[in-house]
């Protein structure tokens, strides 16, 4: 039970808003954690509390078992990469990378060697004497990483490190950072609002909203077993259907459509179903379907075909299925009545307070005639 870095109840209060609200997390040595959430969810505040730029209103941070909350930023040995890189514009690339070593009064020879090593690591061996403004965005970002790594930080902190890069470059750099992190077993915390990035890079993800941690887990955990409708929608998109659940198995949407669930649940009352578009099957056969609707529009997107199906005046559902051949076979024209089906594990049901409802039994088979 000894985490390398432990956050315990970190809270940051600004006037009357809570930027971080009881953030707790155990991070293992060499682990890559990604804090994910929409803007204003508290992920950056949490990162800045760890770095020491923001003082937590309450809560503790333990690094290797020792509290570091009272240490000023410059004694924490955290390597931070800023969103805009924050390279010192008046210092050359090499001097930027050397800065942290100068602060530690490292002997000249050792320092030069370390700087050279770092520049080689980020493939900028020949740019040491240039000024940051003469580098491309991608190169600047690598300087920022080299600068943070040069001090051999106890934890590497990345604040939206890819957001200022071109879309093409982003995937490539994301993989590079991940490889570097794994190679050197760097304990890393990254902040992003891009779930694609988070999925690619993380060992574990932390989804945040309104200053609170919504769910912590591996990619599979979050995708398959979201703990809140918010996570279900934020990770990989879900249709959220609101309605009433009676007797644990009968669901009726606010617009009056009946849905035959694939399981029965402990409880009833107002509830929300989360369904992933790619887990819903469409067929012209409506009889045995879990619900029915009318196709509103369809789009052929290459790898997949998307349909928007209207269940009733208040409810629309997006489905996404593989395209076969010319599309004609997998595409329904607007106006077609279709049946929608899915397998048992595809649906997640949340109660009135957005807590997942326990599944009592699974009803896998659907009788053709109800």
């Amino acid at each position, binding site marked *: 039970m000894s985490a390398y870095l432990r956050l315990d109840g970190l809270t940051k209060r600004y*006037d009357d808003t809570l930027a971080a609200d009881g953030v707790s997390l155990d991070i293992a040595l060499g682990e890559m954690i990604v804090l994910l959430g929409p803007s204003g969810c508290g992920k950056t505040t949490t990162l800045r509390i760890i*770095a*020491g*730029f923001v003082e937590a209103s309450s809560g503790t941070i333990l690094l290797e078992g020792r509290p570091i909350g009272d240490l*000023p*930023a*410059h*004694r*924490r*040995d*955290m*390597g*931070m990469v*800023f969103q*805009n890189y*924050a*390279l*010192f*514009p*008046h210092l050359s690339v090499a001097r930027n990378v050397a*800065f*942290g070593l100068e*602060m*530690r009064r490292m002997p000249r020879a050792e320092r030069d060697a370390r700087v050279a090593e770092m520049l080689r690591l980020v493939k900028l061996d020949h740019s040491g004497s240039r000024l*940051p*403004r003469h580098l491309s965005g991608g190169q600047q970002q690598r300087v920022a990483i080299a*600068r*943070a790594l040069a*001090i051999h930080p106890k934890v590497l*902190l990345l604040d939206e490190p890819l957001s200022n890069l071109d879309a093409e470059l982003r995937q490539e750099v994301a993989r590079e950072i991940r490889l570097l992190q794994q190679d050197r077993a760097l304990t890393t915390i990254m902040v992003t609002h891009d779930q694609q990035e988070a999925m690619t890079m993380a060992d574990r993800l932390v989804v945040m909203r309104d200053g609170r941690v919504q769910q912590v887990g591996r990619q599979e955990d979050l995708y398959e077993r979201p703990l809140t409708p918010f996570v279900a929608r934020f990770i990989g998109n879900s249709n959220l259907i609101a309605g009433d659940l009676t007797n644990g198995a009968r669901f009726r949407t606010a617009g009056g459509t009946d849905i035959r669930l694939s399981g029965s649940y402990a409880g009833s009352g107002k509830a929300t179903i989360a369904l992933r578009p790619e887990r819903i099957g469409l067929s012209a056969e409506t009889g045995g379907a879990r619900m029915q609707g009318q196709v509103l529009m369809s789009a052929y997107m290459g790898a997949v075909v998307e349909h928007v199906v209207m269940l009733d005046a208040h409810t629309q559902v997006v489905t996404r299925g593989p395209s076969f051949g010319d599309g004609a076979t997998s595409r329904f024209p607007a106006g077609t009545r279709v049946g929608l089906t899915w397998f048992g594990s595809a649906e997640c049901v949340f109660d009135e307070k957005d807590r997942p409802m326990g599944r009592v039994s699974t009803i896998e088979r659907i009788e053709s005639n109800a």
Partner: protein
Amino acid sequence: MKPSPAIAFLGPATCVVALLLVAPLGLLARYSLNKYDPTELMIEAATPANYLRFFTEAFYWDVMRTTIVVALLVTCLCLLLGLPLAYRLARTTSRWKSAMMLVVVLPLFIGSTVRTVGWMILFAQRGVLDSLSVWLFGLHIDLMYTPSAVVIGTLSVNLPFMVLTLQSVFEGIDSRLEEAAQGLGAAPGRAFWKIVWPLALPGVGIAAVLSFILGMNAYATPVLLGGPRFQMMAPLLFWEFNTNNNWPFSAALGFILMATTLLLTTLANVLIPRRYRA
């Protein structure tokens, strides 16, 4: 682009500056080459005598030297006192920030005459300082009509200006640079001197030059706190004009003052490099 609408928009303003600034200064330039006569007052001539007089007579050298020394001293003190305050203001995240800025800016607009009143109360015989000193040590302090009083008074006039300029200079430097420096192990003091200061230097230089110019052209403070025997350039100019009726010489003084100001501004623009960009 068609020229006609631009003329309609810009013509009147151009005329104002041409008629009320260029034309008067032109005539003043002409007058500065005339000769002064105690009875005729001004005789048409084309002589550099007025300028030569300024640069050859020891009295005027002294006035120029006093003016420069006061302006220089004031600028140094302004930097010393203005830097911490400006930096604090630029980096505060307090919700009172704009209120604090307003309080610092307010004196800037009150006018040097009115602001000097307070210092006169402090320095005057039987004023605050004098009374306190008598009460504490039994000693009279008479700072009124001393160079120190002028320096303090001018400092007080220039300081809000300096703070405001420096504040915007610091504001223009991304605070994440300091965070980055601190994250790399620099204590706040070192982060300031190693990162912020080199980046702020051009702006600080411009602020210093502006403060120096303001100090050189000061009128009310030297007149009120320096007294009749303390001479600086602007009061001297008015005295030559008003008391001696020597228009040609005061015209020459005006141009010497202007030339110094312009020279300094130009030098500042040429010598001070443009700000680094990230």
